[in-house]
C-alpha cells in the first residue's frame, strides 16, 4: 500500500445550501479502494450532508462527483446503489416487518418464471450473511432480532450487490463493545476485498483503530485530508473544533476557585416516588454545581423530574428558600425559578418546526401568559445575546431548529431556559450525542452560570464530565441515593460507589 491506486470516488468543489444554512462550501473529497476512510468533524460540520450528496439524497448546487473517473449525478439512493455505492445509516433503515432475506435482497430478488424465487433468495441471503460471518435464519422476520444484528443485516444488504463503496454513517452508536469488534472484523474483511469504506463515528478510539485515512470538515468546509497514522489525537481535535484545547482545562480551574457556600436554595427532605426513586435528602446551594452520577436507570432522570414537578412525589417535601413548595406540575416549578432541560431534546424540548427565535422565547412567553406577548424588540435583543453567548450556529434567528445540528439544538434548548433566568437549572444529559467543541462550550457555560449565582443540577452519564464540573457529586444506584462526595472526588471513587464497593459501610454509617 505504498502507492495508492486512483481514487474510486472523487468529489470536487461540492457546495450545497439549505434555507438559511450553507451546509457545504467548496469541499473536495477522495476515497481510495481498499481503505477505511474516516470522515471527521463536529456536529453540523457537514458530514451527513456530504454523505447524502454522494449517495444521491441531495443534489449539490455546484461541484462534481466522479465515480472511477466518470462524472455521475445520482438523483436517488437507488441509482447510487446501482452504481455500487451502498449506505448503512445510523438508524437501521430496513423494513422490520419483512424477513431477513427480503431485507437483504429486496429490489434485486432472484426470479423464476417472472415471480420471486424464495428458495434462491434464501440461499443467496445465507451466502451473503456467511461472507460476513453472521449466522441467522434468513427466513426469520427482521423484527425478531436485536438492533445490533439488524445493523449487520443492513451491511449484508449493502454488500449483496457488487459494492465498490460502502458508506457507514455512525453505525456504532447503538452497539456494545463486542458488537463493535464484530463490525470491525467485517469491515476489515471487506476492505481486504478492495471495497472502499467511508466511516463516520464520534468515538476517536474507533477511528484510530479502524481507519487508514481521514478527512476533516469544519463548518461545511474542508480542513484537510490526512493519513490516520500521521495525525495525533490532539491535532485532530484542534482541527475539528478549530481552536486550541485550553478550554477544558479552564473549566477545571473555575470549579476549584468557585465559592460554593451560598445559601441553600433548594432543600429536599425524604422526597421520593414509589417505583421511580427511593426517598432522598438533598441540598442545592445558590452558585453551586451538583453533579448526579449513576448508571442508566439508576434514577437520575427520575430525581430531576421530581424536583421539577414533572412527576408527583408520594413522600417527603421540597423547600425553596426555606418555604415548602407544593409542586403541582412544571408550571409551579417554573414559577419558583426551576428550569429543566430534558435529555430527550427532540421529544420533550424543542419545537423543531419553529425558528430559533420562537423557540427561545417560548418559555418566557409561557411565564408571561398568552395575553402579554413578548415585544419584538425584547425578543431580538434576547436572541442576539444568547446566539452570541452560546455560539449557536448558524447565527440566524430565523433558521428552523430542525435544520440545526444536535449540539446547536442543545444550545438553543439551554438558551430557552436561560431566558427565564432560573435560580435552579436542571440539566439532564446536556452533552449527550454532541461533539467535543460544543461539550466544552456547554460546560463552560454551566461554570459561568454558577459563578453568577445560579444553582445547577448536572446529570451526565460521562463521569469524567461530572467529576470535572461539579462542586458536589450525588451518586445514585438502583434508584437509591447512596452517597454524596465533594468536588475533589476522583473518578475511581465514584466508579467504586456505583459498582457497589464499600457501599455497605457508607450506608451503615
Amino acid at each position, binding site marked *: 500500500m505504498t502507492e495508492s491506486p486512483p481514487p474510486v470516488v472523487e468529489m470536487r468543489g461540492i457546495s450545497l445550501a439549505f434555507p438559511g444554512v450553507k451546509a457545504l462550501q467548496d469541499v473536495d473529497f477522495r476515497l481510495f479502494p481498499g481503505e477505511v476512510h474516516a470522515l471527521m468533524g463536529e456536529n453540523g460540520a457537514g458530514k451527513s450532508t456530504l454523505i447524502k450528496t454522494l449517495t444521491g439524497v441531495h443534489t449539490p448546487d455546484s461541484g462534481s462527483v466522479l465515480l472511477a473517473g466518470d462524472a455521475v449525478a445520482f438523483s436517488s*439512493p437507488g*441509482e447510487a446503489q446501482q452504481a455500487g455505492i451502498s449506505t448503512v445509516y445510523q438508524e437501521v433503515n430496513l423494513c422490520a*416487518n*419483512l424477513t431477513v432475506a427480503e431485507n437483504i435482497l429486496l429490489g434485486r430478488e432472484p426470479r423464476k418464471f417472472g415471480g*420471486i424465487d424464495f428458495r434462491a433468495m434464501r440461499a443467496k441471503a445465507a451466502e451473503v450473511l456467511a461472507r460476513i460471518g453472521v449466522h441467522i435464519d434468513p427466513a426469520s422476520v427482521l423484527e425478531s432480532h*436485536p*438492533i445490533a444484528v439488524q445493523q449487520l443485516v443492513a451491511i449484508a444488504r449493502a454488500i449483496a450487490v457488487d459494492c465498490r463503496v460502502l458508506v457507514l454513517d455512525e453505525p456504532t452508536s447503538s452497539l456494545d463493545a463486542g458488537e463493535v469488534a464484530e463490525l470491525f472484523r467485517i469491515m476489515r474483511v471487506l476492505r481486504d476485498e478492495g471495497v472502499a469504506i467511508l466511516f463516520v463515528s464520534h468515538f476517536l478510539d474507533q477511528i484510530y483503530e479502524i481507519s487508514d485515512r481521514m478527512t476533516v470538515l469544519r463548518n461545511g468546509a474542508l480542513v484537510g485530508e490526512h493519513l490516520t497514522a500521521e495525525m495525533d489525537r490532539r491535532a485532530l481535535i484542534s482541527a475539528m473544533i478549530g481552536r486550541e484545547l485550553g478550554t477544558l482545562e479552564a473549566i477545571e480551574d473555575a470549579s476549584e476557585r468557585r465559592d460554593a457556600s451560598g445559601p441553600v436554595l433548594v432543600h429536599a427532605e425524604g422526597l421520593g416516588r414509589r417505583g421511580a426513586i427511593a426517598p432522598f435528602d438533598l441540598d442545592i446551594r445558590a452558585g453551586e454545581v451538583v453533579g448526579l452520577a449513576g448508571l442508566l436507570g439508576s434514577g437520575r432522570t427520575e430525581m430531576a423530574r421530581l424536583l421539577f414537578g414533572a412527576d408527583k412525589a408520594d413522600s417527603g417535601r421540597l423547600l425553596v428558600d426555606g418555604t415548602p413548595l407544593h409542586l403541582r406540575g412544571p408550571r409551579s416549578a417554573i414559577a419558583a425559578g426551576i428550569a429543566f432541560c430534558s435529555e430527550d431534546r427532540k421529544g420533550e424540548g424543542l419545537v423543531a418546526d419553529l425558528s430559533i427565535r420562537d423557540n427561545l422565547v417560548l418559555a418566557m412567553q409561557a411565564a408571561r401568559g398568552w395575553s402579554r406577548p413578548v415585544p419584538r424588540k425584547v425578543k431580538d435583543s434576547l436572541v442576539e445575546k444568547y446566539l452570541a453567548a452560546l455560539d449557536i450556529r448558524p447565527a440566524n434567528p430565523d433558521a428552523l431548529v430542525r435544520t440545526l445540528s444536535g449540539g446547536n439544538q442543545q444550545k438553543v434548548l439551554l438558551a430557552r431556559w436561560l431566558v427565564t433566568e432560573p435560580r435552579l437549572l436542571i440539566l439532564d444529559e446536556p452533552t449527550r450525542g454532541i461533539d467535543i467543541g460544543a461539550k466544552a462550550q456547554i460546560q463552560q457555560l454551566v461554570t459561568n452560570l454558577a459563578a453568577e449565582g445560579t444553582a445547577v443540577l448536572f446529570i451526565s452519564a460521562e463521569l469524567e464530565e461530572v467529576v470535572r464540573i461539579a462542586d458536589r457529586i450525588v451518586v445514585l444506584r438502583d434508584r437509591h441515593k447512596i452517597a454524596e462526595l465533594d468536588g475533589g472526588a476522583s473518578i475511581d471513587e465514584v466508579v467504586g460507589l456505583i459498582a457497589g464497593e464499600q457501599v455497605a459501610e457508607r450506608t451503615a454509617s
Partner: protein
Amino acid sequence: MTALTQRVSQRVPARFLPVLATVVLFVLTFGVGSASYDGFASGQIIANLFIDNAFLIVLATGMTFVILSGGIDLSVGSVVALSTMVTAAGLRAGWPVPLVVVAVLVIGSTLGLLMGLVIHKFDIQPFIVTLAGMFLARGLCFLISVESVSIKDSTFRDIATAVIELPGGVTITYNVVIALVVVLVALYVLHRTRFGRSVYAVGGNEQSALLMGLKTSRAKVGVYVISGFCSALAGLLFSLYMLSGYGLHAVGMELEAIAAVVIGGTLLAGGVGYVLGSLVGVLVLGTIQTLISFQGTLSSWWTKIVIGALLLVFIAVQRGLARGPRRRQTLTS
C-alpha cells in the same frame, strides 16, 4: 389456555396469529350455527356465503393492498355504486356486454390512479383524498340517473343466473369463480412479485423502503389503481347480483370491506397481513349475517352490532400482538 397459546406461538410465527385467530373465529361461528340450526351445516350454505359475498371478497382484496401499504381507500363503496350505474345505463343504451365491462373497469382503475397520484404527488392523507373520491363517485352516479335502473339485457341476465354444479349437488355462480380468481391473482402478486413485496416494504417503513432503492411511488400509486380496479370489478359482480344500477347501492360498503380486512388480521398501520385473512374475514361477516337470518327474530341491524364488537376485539388483540414482540426484544437486548 395460556399453555395452549404458548404452544401455538411456538409452532406458528407471531405474524400468523391474527389470521389463525380469524380462522378459529370462523370455525366457531359456523360451529355455533351448525349446532343451533338444522340445515346450517350444509355445503350449499357455505356456497351461499361465497355467492352472497363475492363482490365483498373482491373489494376486500383490493382494500388489503391499500391497507398493507399503510393507506386507506374510502371510495370503494361509491365506485361500486358508480360501476352498477354505468353497467345498467350502458346496457340500457344497447352497448354490448364486453364493452360495458371494459368501460367499467377502465373508469374504476382511472379513478384509483387519480386518487393515488394526488396522494403521492401532493403528499396528502389518503383518508382525505379517498373521501373526496367517495363523494365524487357517488355524485357521478346521480349525474347518470337519480332513479334505480334495472338491467334487462339478456346476455347479462344469463351470466347472472348461470350456475355451476359442484359434486354433492352444491351450486355456485360465476361470481364466485371470478372472486376466487381475484384472490389467487392477489396472492401471487403480493407474495411473488417485486411490486407486492414493495407494498409490504412501504407499509412497514416507507422511508426505509425509499432508501433501500425500491420504487415506492409505484407501490403507493399502484395499490390505489388495484383497489379502483377491484371496486369496479366488485361493481360488476354486484350488478350481476342485484341486476340493477342505483346511486344508493353499496352505501357504507367501504366500511364493510375495511372491517373484513381488519378482522382478517391485517394491521391498519400497514406492512402486516394476508389476502387469505381478508377472505376469511369476509366469510366471518357473511356467517354472522346468515346466523342472524336463521335466527329469524333479530333485526338485521344486529349484524352491524356484532361486527362492531368484533372489530373492537380484533384491533385490541392486534395492539397486544404488536406490542408483544417488541417488549420481548427490549428484555433480551
